[in-house]
């Protein structure tokens, strides 16, 4: 009896809170959790006209196929290489930029630079894809024209297997470094100015102050950001690659996500595409959980 009344009083107290959560709960259930269950079609021979439940189980057939499929190795390799360089530079460049910007004394200059470098983050890869296709064109693209002034041969940035990965990595760093620097800049702003004054009195120059005060001060946040970046090593950036690549550079530029789209959705191989996607999600999930565990132990970091 007492248990019931306790439960009843809990319900009486909190039902409005549950009710307020209901819309978000249902949307997440239907469009996030049910697709997770729907991923069972990776283990089935799914036919749209038969339905998910009635399609026959075929076990790991699609995963076996994935590892024997001639393009798979290339696609996985491309994904890892592109993502690896994006994540490394995606941490290093913002840290370096934040350190340099922190040395700027004039607030107006600082603000202007920030306004300029944060901007590309908000433009989509559709817009930027259109812009880069124009700017990086072999025939008369402005970048090749500028390089031409220094006597360089025109470079086929988006159509040559020698250049495609570098172009993708650099344009991504270009888009995101400013925005990624925000957390480092706020960490730098939080450093106690007394530390610098004391160091100056002891005769430490600015370089030494940077080595012994500034860098140790932002190190914890750099570790957090770098570890979280490690969890994204399977994400080479679908939006960007899809808007920049073309059949000429499939060899170096085709990544797991674009492959899933072409084979699975365009090619109608729903089950195989799902299997490839699931393979990627599973590895990504393990990596992210590992990263969070490390951070929780090392830096007492929590998601919320």
């Amino acid at each position: 009896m007492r248990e019931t009344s306790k439960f009843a009083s809990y319900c009486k107290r909190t039902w409005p809170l549950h009710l307020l959560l209901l819309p978000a709960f249902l949307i997440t259930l239907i469009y996030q959790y049910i697709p997770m269950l729907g991923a069972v079609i990776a283990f089935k021979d799914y036919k749209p006209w038969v339905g998910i439940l009635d399609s026959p189980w075929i076990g790991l057939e699609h995963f076996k196929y994935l590892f024997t499929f001639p393009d798979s190795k290339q696609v996985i390799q491309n994904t890892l290489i592109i993502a690896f360089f994006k994540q490394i530079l995606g941490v290093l460049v913002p840290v370096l930029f934040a350190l340099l910007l922190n040395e700027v004394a004039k607030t107006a200059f600082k603000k202007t630079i920030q306004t300029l470098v944060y901007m590309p983050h908000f433009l989509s890869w559709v817009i930027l894809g259109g812009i880069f296709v124009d700017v990086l064109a072999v025939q008369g693209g402005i970048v090749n024209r500028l390089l031409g002034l220094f006597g360089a041969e025109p470079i086929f940035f988006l159509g040559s297997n020698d250049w495609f990965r570098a172009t993708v990595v650099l344009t991504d760093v270009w888009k995101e470094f400013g925005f990624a620097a925000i957390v480092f800049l706020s960490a730098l702003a939080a450093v106690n100015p007394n530390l610098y004054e004391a160091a100056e009195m002891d005769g430490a120059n600015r370089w030494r102050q940077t080595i012994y005060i500034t860098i140790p001060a932002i190190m914890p946040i750099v570790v957090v950001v770098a570890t979280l970046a490690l969890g994204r090593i399977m994400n080479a950036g679908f939006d960007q690659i899809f808007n920049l690549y073309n059949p000429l550079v499939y060899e170096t530029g085709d990544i797991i996500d674009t492959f899933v789209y072409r084979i699975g959705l365009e090619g109608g191989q729903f089950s195989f595409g799902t299997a490839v996607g699931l393979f990627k999600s599973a590895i990504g999930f393990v990596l992210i959980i590992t990263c969070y565990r490390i951070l929780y132990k090392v830096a007492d970091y929590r998601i919320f």
Partner: protein
Amino acid sequence: MRYRSPSYKLFAICNYIALGILGLLCIFPVVHVFAVSLSSRAAATANIVNFWPIGFTLDAYEQTLANSHFLRALSIGVMRTVLGTGISIAVLLLAAYSLSKPDRKFGGRSAYAWYFVVPMLFSGGMIPSYLIVKETGLLNTIWALVIPGAASAYLLILMLNFFRTVPIELEEAALIDGAGHFTTLFRVYLPVSMAGIATISLFEMVAHWNSWFDGMIYLTNPKDYPLATFLQSIIGKENFQEAGIQAEDIANISSRTVKASQIFIGALPILAVYPFLQKYFVKGIVLGSVKG
């Protein structure tokens, strides 16, 4: 208090120059395309336009704005942004209010919180998501673009952190006056959280305006495409049939200046809200993403 040695001064000068160049590098592609869009077709084809229009003309914009395909996509893009932002904000505010309650007042809060976070870490993938949108009958409707993503976990966490900064005294005063949760949310929380609401609204607007992939997979008829998807289908890929464009229009659309004008119009709303956005996102990022 800055160190004043000659070598530091030299470094400072180089630093200003380097950062200045870096800043310009971030806008130079956009400025170039803008200059192309305002140049004469001959100058654009001859590849002589740099950062200033040559043979200034608004022809490209006139053509773009006279193109019914473009205008239809533009209006669908606006509609999807308004509708999507409205629905998301409603869903997020209600949920964030509940989740902002401390555990002792709302047992089960952390279970809900994990429930919303798990999909950030693991997803069923592109194809099962497509299948469920199809099964729930949203395929080929604008709802496919606004419902599935309406409860973004990232913005939910951001908003609940904003709500947590509401002074507890305000809420207690309301409770003493006999207000329930609904009254507290609408009369106490919302009026003092306008900065937070502005932040997540701007994020939602930008996300909806930029979003193109959902349009591409959930809408089969190119006539239903919002602007971002429409631009995706005509830029780069040059797949005109897919965009439902007649052969006689191709010559006009494929012209470099017209393409540049379409890109620029696509980017314009983002550039326009960007100053407001900038006011809020720094705070939002620090509040929402990394807490030590």
